[in-house]
């Protein structure tokens, strides 16, 4: 399975569109202080004001600048996405690969844990715990990561199991290679496209979960999150404010998810040779 994930993404128009959207949102989040006139928590003096030069998206029910909250909300979303993706994929690879390579009781214990965790939807546990402790950003990231690694571990394990049956692994074993060496120089490189696809998947789920918690109103009241803005704005659909309050926030969230979705799809499609058009079909498509 020699796949170049970068080429797969670069040759897919949808994935490129996804990358572009994501890059725009990252840029907006990074430049948030430059692009806004008000700090997201500051009271501007007017509630429910219409969009104007100072408040590009007007103000909300607490008189806060919506544009500013939108940009700072992007930071929360991106931090959660990145944090969860890194922690979750690390756990997945550590558990999945070590279980496959070491085997025996070690493997069965881990796989029991993975299977049991896999059967409960993470969001149920998330809601339950969040309802009691209203987690802040760091705890949210840790919680989502702890709940989402088992799926990846399962996939990594089965991949490593099939990889370690290859001839060149046996060959290196006859030369006395240990587990660590085999993993580092023979298995990890083969796993990298899979790991990339799963990282995107984890990030997408994290964005959704964080927004979902905000939407249900069980996240930390101090964090600015798109989900929470939507939760807040949904109470005022009878006023005109939804046009510049609810709609842009929801669209920003949806675009982020769609962007991650496109990138993920293209990475997954690249790994499934059945879905990649053969040379003949590809030339037809280009006509």
């Amino acid at each position, binding site marked *: 399975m020699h796949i170049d994930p970068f080429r797969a993404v670069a040759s897919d128009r949808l994935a490129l569109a996804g990358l572009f959207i994501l890059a725009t949102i990252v840029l907006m989040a990074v430049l948030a202080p430059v692009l806004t006139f008000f700090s997201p928590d500051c009271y501007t003096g007017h509630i429910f004001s219409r969009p104007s030069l100072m408040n590009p998206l007007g103000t909300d029910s607490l008189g806060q600048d919506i544009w500013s909250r939108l940009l700072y909300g992007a930071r929360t979303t991106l931090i959660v996405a990145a944090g969860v993706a890194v922690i979750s994929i690390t756990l997945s690879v550590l558990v999945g690969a070590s279980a496959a390579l070491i085997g025996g009781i070690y493997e069965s214990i881990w796989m029991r844990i993975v299977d049991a965790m896999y059967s409960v939807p993470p969001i149920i546990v998330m809601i*339950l715990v969040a309802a009691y402790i209203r987690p802040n950003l760091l705890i949210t990231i840790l919680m989502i990561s702890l709940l989402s690694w088992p799926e990846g571990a399962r996939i990594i394990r089965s991949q490593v199991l099939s990889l370690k049956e290859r001839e060149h692994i046996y060959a290196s074993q006859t030369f006395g290679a240990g587990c660590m060496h085999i993993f580092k120089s023979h298995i990890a490189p083969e796993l990298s496209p899979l790991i990339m696809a799963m990282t995107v998947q984890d990030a997408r789920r994290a964005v959704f979960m964080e927004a979902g918690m905000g939407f249900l109103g069980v996240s930390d009241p101090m964090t600015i999150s798109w989900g929470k803005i939507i939760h807040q704005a949904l109470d005022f659909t009878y006023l005109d404010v939804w046009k510049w309050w609810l709609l842009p926030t929801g669209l920003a969230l949806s675009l982020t998810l769609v962007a991650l979705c496109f990138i993920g799809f293209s990475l997954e499609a690249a790994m499934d040779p059945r879905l990649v058009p053969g040379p003949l079909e590809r030339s037809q498509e280009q006509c």
Partner: protein
Amino acid sequence: MKNDLPGRGLILNYVAALAAIFSLNFALPRLMPGDPLHAIYGDEALVSMTAEMEAHLIKQFALDRTWTDQLAAYLMGLLHGDLGFSYYYKDQVSAVIMGALPWTLLLTLLALAIATVIGVIMGIEAASRRGRLLDRGLTASLMFLSGFPMFFMGILLLLIFGVSLGWAPLFGAITPYSGLEGLDYLKDLCSHLALPVAALVLVLVGDTFLITRSTAISILAESFIMTARAIGCSEFKVKYAHSGRNSLLPVVTETGMRIPHLLIQTLFIEIVFSYPGVGSLLNTALNSRDYPLLQGILLLLTVLVLTVNLFVDLLYSKLDPRVRYAH
């Protein structure tokens, strides 16, 4: 004997998962700072709490004894089917949930059925026109839609068709106090169902479409399809009877596996449309910090999800012998 093993292993997983949720339910309120009774019953209860009731509840939960006694009391309560008392609704939690569950099931099953039928038909059509405009258009637009968070899709439909155009009712499952009967009642019910179901279908249909399409593509390349065409089968028959029927197995199992996900999404959609199902109940429980109700809902959801998963797993290993050997 060997055939029983995967089934037993599966059931063991589900028992472990259920035990994990039980222990979370048990431990969370008791680990919270402050009075555990307050954490178990939430803010709503404190208002109507009398000293007598407090003493009774402390005795019921064995809060004045060791944690093993508390655990025993908790498990005994569950075994009696006692999920606690909702102080917000002034009723048994189980009764409150059972009143809302039919609405949720109605939404979920209706959306699932519609999305599956549409997804399969579009998937087969797209597969037989692979690479052409219709195929690429459908794939791109459905991928776009399936990336949407469902609750925002609901909000979008609500804003467009409910708030701006005024074509559909904004909340609820039936018009309150309308006293409609017969056909009018059904019409009212359907007009309230239309938007939530549409929102669910729009997001769901993409996955079914993509699975059907990719399966049908690989099946259309098989030689029996060429044979069917050679003996003069109509294109319709080739598409639906030959390739369509054979691509159903992955669709069925995949659909089964997505039911838990759908159930959760339905809860969010219900909150958007104030649909009187379990989702709205969850929202109320969260907002009023009615913890017994919250725990009851999440427990019920877990049991539902685990049952569906177990069923699908068992069905899957029956349908596809390769899965049986993998365990």
